[in-house]
């Protein structure tokens, strides 16, 4: 088995998520059914998207393992590979290598309350997690989702957000930094502020999954501390520059841990033990 060999997949659908056209969601289907069987992921894992001639990029898996027959990735147009991916069309062939890394600790989270705190385009593995929990709704107690973007046009998965809000199985707290839309019916304010107002009280059975840009994480942390969340109950997903994705090429370490293989999911208690890089 060569861990660098991607599975060939076909782009089945491309959805432009945001008004600035920087974020697109790609629905991918495996060319071979045995590859589809081999690719068994859990919400929170990532994969390397592979484009011959351009390279590879590590991207969180946006679809839930309960969604069968395809996998989804939401990709921000940033560099060489992502720009090329954004120019591709339905029917084109790319490669997928994975699933890679660890996942949100579902064994621990089951039976507890979960509050998801997300910002910007880091929401993709959080979408996977929300869909996964909704498909296993009886295994979780209260589920809160606090999700913010700079403006309404930059929110991902808008139709699903509205559907989750309407269904009421989870408590949605959508927010934007600012909007001029007079009909905006959700929150206005930064994620840390909304977290302080809406997050459930701390409890040994209540876990916060925090995933977003560094500035959001930096200012949400004191809020969770103030609310009394212990660092074992705060779960982060990290990013680093990666190449191999399997803990071998050496570039994504924090101390003796590789973010690609030992992470990307760490509790804050675990991160506190590692050098702050």
């Amino acid at each position, binding site marked *: 088995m060569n861990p660098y060999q991607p599975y060939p997949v076909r782009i089945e659908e491309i959805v432009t998520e945001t008004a600035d056209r920087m974020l697109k969601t790609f629905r991918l289907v495996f060319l071979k059914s045995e590859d589809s069987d081999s690719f068994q992921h859990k919400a929170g894992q990532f994969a390397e998207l592979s484009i011959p001639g351009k390279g590879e990029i590590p991207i969180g898996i946006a679809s839930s393992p309960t969604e069968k027959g395809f996998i989804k990735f939401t990709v921000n147009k940033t560099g060489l590979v992502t720009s090329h991916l954004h120019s591709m069309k339905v029917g084109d062939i790319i490669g997928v290598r994975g699933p890679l890394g660890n996942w949100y600790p579902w064994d621990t989270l089951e039976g507890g309350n979960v509050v998801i705190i997300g910002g910007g385009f880091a929401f993709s593995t959080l979408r996977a997690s929300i869909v996964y929990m909704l498909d296993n709704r009886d295994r979780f107690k209260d589920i809160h989702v606090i999700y913010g973007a700079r403006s309404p046009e930059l929110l991902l998965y808008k139709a699903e957000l509205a559907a989750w809000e309407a269904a009421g199985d989870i408590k949605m707290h959508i927010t934007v930094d600012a909007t001029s839309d007079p009909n905006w019916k959700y929150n206005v304010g930064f994620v840390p502020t909304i977290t302080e107002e809406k997050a459930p009280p701390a409890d040994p059975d209540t876990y916060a999954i925090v995933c977003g840009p560094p500035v959001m994480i930096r200012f949400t942390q004191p809020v969770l501390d103030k609310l009394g969340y212990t660092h074992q109950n705060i779960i982060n997903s990290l990013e680093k520059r990666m190449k191999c994705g399997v803990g071998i090429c050496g570039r994504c*370490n924090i101390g003796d841990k590789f973010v690609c293989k030992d992470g990307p999911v760490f509790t804050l208690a675990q991160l506190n033990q590692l050098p702050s890089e």
Partner: protein
Amino acid sequence: MKVIKISTQNWSEGIAKLRNEYRLYAPVKKGTGSQIKELKPEENPDLSLKLSRFSPKSVVFPQSQIMFTYSLDENDKDYNLLKEVKVDSTPRVVIGLKPCDASSFGIVKRNYDNPDYQDSYWMDSYNSLTLVGCACDEPAATCFCLSVGGGPYNETGLDLLLITVEDGYLVKVITDKGKNLVKIAGWTEETDFDQFENRQKAAEEKITSEIQTDRLKELEVNDLFNAPIWEEMAFSCLNCGTCTYSCPTCWCFDIQDETRGKSGIRMRNWDSCMYPLFTLEGSGHNPRTEKLQRVRQRFMHKLKYYADKYDSGIQCVGCGRCINLCPVNIDIRVVCEKMNDYQTVNQ
């Protein structure tokens, strides 16, 4: 001790026989130094040479290695699919590597062959190797193998150990792979050798350089990471990367695609934690923009993270290459001393 005696003539004949069964790698002269490379038919191993300038890691982990090929021609049936390029895993032998270099493969293997993933390129290449070491009777002033579990007569990682004598070599058989090789070479003359310990002791006494590593594991990782030693250690560093390229235990690599016309290759190349691009993210964020951070990463990885992760000593064989080749005289022995001696304020 039973050893096999190889006369000068038997040596040449044996090498000739080995060429039929193995691809031969050995030290040869290059410029003012030497290198370990695949021998051309007219080249012979030169075991009188001092430690090669670059380590033999390239035998298993080439500086550039093709992993896949691909076609971007839409008319091609394999259009856009990556095709694996297998390494040539026909038997190879490295003749005359120093014991320090031989022990490096075991250190690196923990990275390439872990319980979750096996790097097939490295593993296939490594498994094809037979390693014939040559005991090191003239260690250099920068050698400190004895401090890191090695030694000039150490057998770790070797299949055969050669000892130079006046009229040829004595060879100590260590593994079945080694036994097989002496059979192929036709080296069969067994003899008793009672001077092994004396020779070993004499060589070990020539090693004057040492490091202490006893406290590295017990020290808190964050105490060392935040210790006020790194500015001084990193001050003169040019981030040239020579230390990482010459090091037998530095294993980091980059993966790049190169296209020419409508076909191309996905390859891996040696990379170095000394370079800012190593960790530069797509967003522009870089966790290691400062050279202090990069120098700290190199030494923390070798002396602390590796020791913590595998509980099998540090990621260094004491060959001294990084000390000899550093253009600004940064010395891993000094860094190790600073780390090992570090006292936190409340101690």
